[in-house]
């Protein structure tokens, strides 16, 4: 009962938590560059400002797809928090990304098309690894339900450490962080798919970015198993890792990104699958 209340609270507050993570990240990023940085609540100030701006939409389907992107991502996060089917979670997330790619292709802006292309290539890079991790989790617990991972007494990290490494390698692609931020590349394609959004419709895409943080850090949290403190420690370490990587590397092009993910991260996940299958660890 208590657990259900916590879950519902977490689902409702997921965008707020994601906004706080994003604010903290901007702060940490500024401190790493020896700047003072914006206040912690800066993402929420941006949110309130965008509510005030006049709306300019390209066409109604484009604006609608942005909102569908946000809602389907929230559904994915909700299923992940409730401990639903891992494959369902991955495909809900895929659906939300597919919707925003569709929105990117629905305008006539060339930058939007480039961003949508690159987002599609990013899916090709991280999706196989995620599916392999899900299958490994199935081999470990005998069910695709994430709740089995939450309940696992032995932390999942010690059962499948290689899966954690593979997840760390693809997280920059999912979060659109350097060196794999080809989809979002601010200096090249000016934000990619989110380029044509403005006003309150940009807010949906902007808030979906916060939800993406929650989604990715929850995937990391899974590896703690039933031990909440280990999960939180892993999340904190991953946060530092992502930001250090983001600030210290330059962007690679999409071919290098794809080659890295499919030749390094995917084999690691595959070896992990085989090790879990034969119960080596």
């Amino acid at each position, binding site marked *: 009962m208590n657990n259900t209340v916590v879950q519902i609270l977490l689902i409702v507050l997921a965008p707020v938590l994601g906004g706080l993570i994003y604010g903290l990240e901007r702060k940490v990023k500024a401190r790493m*560059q020896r700047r003072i940085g914006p206040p912690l609540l800066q993402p*929420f100030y*941006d949110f309130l*400002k965008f509510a005030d701006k006049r709306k300019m939409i390209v066409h109604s389907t484009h604006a609608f797809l942005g909102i569908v992107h946000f809602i389907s991502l929230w559904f994915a996060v909700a299923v992940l928090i409730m401990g639903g089917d891992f494959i369902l979670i991955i495909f809900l997330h895929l659906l939300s990304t597919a919707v925003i790619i569709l929105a990117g292709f629905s305008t006539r802006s060339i930058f939007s098309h480039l961003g949508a292309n690159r987002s599609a290539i990013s899916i090709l890079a991280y999706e196989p690894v995620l599916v392999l991790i899900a299958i490994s989790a199935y081999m470990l617990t005998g069910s695709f339900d994430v709740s089995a991972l939450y309940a696992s007494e032995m932390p999942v990290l010690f059962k499948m450490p290689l899966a954690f490494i593979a997840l760390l390698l693809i997280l920059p692609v999912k979060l659109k962080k350097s060196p794999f931020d080809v989809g979002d590349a601010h200096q090249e394609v000016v*934000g990619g798919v989110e380029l044509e959004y403005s006003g309150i419709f940009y807010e949906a895409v902007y808030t979906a970015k916060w939800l993406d943080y929650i989604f990715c850090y929850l995937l990391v949290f899974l590896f703690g198993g039933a031990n909440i403190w280990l999960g939180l420690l892993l999340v904190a370490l991953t946060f530092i890792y992502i930001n250090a990587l983001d600030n210290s590397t330059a962007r690679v092009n999409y071919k290098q990104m794809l080659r890295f993910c499919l030749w390094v991260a995917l084999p690691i996940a595959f070896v992990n699958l085989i090790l879990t299958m034969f119960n080596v660890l």
Partner: protein
Amino acid sequence: MKLNQYRKKSPWILHYNAGGCNGCDIEILACLGPKYDIERFGMINSGNPKQADVMLITGPVTKRSRERLVDVYSQMPEPKVVVACGSCTCTGGVFRGMYNCEGGVDQYIPVDVYVPGCGCRPEQIIAGVVEALKKLEEKTKEMEKSVRLDVAPVESDEQTNRRDIAAPINNGGKPTLFG
């Protein structure tokens, strides 16, 4: 709690170079760097006109760039402010009267704040942007004001209307129009 007070806390900047020599552009980028760090006021250099509030323009507007300038300006949603950075942008500077440009950016789009200097110092740019934020606040309030017409309603304008046509019925069968 008034939510309106937060709207000036996140001005996103659009930087447009209208044919300048890059001197002022470097100073704008210095504002974003560690020494001046205008991100602590919530400003981001977003290269996207559809999400920007403040437009920083550098350079005298050359004939090649003025169409794009007006295009980019018109893509920014209201409320928006324009800051002209540098002498060339304010008046034309040393390029005034040359064959390829005319004097200043305010001949093409409305400018709210002029920042002089060749090139303008980062401190001046920050002061100019802070001034621009006050203008932004005024413009937002102007946008939110409800419009009421002061003109008195028209009593009769000597036009045929439906009430006159229906008069035979209303007036007890006495025709006024169309016999």
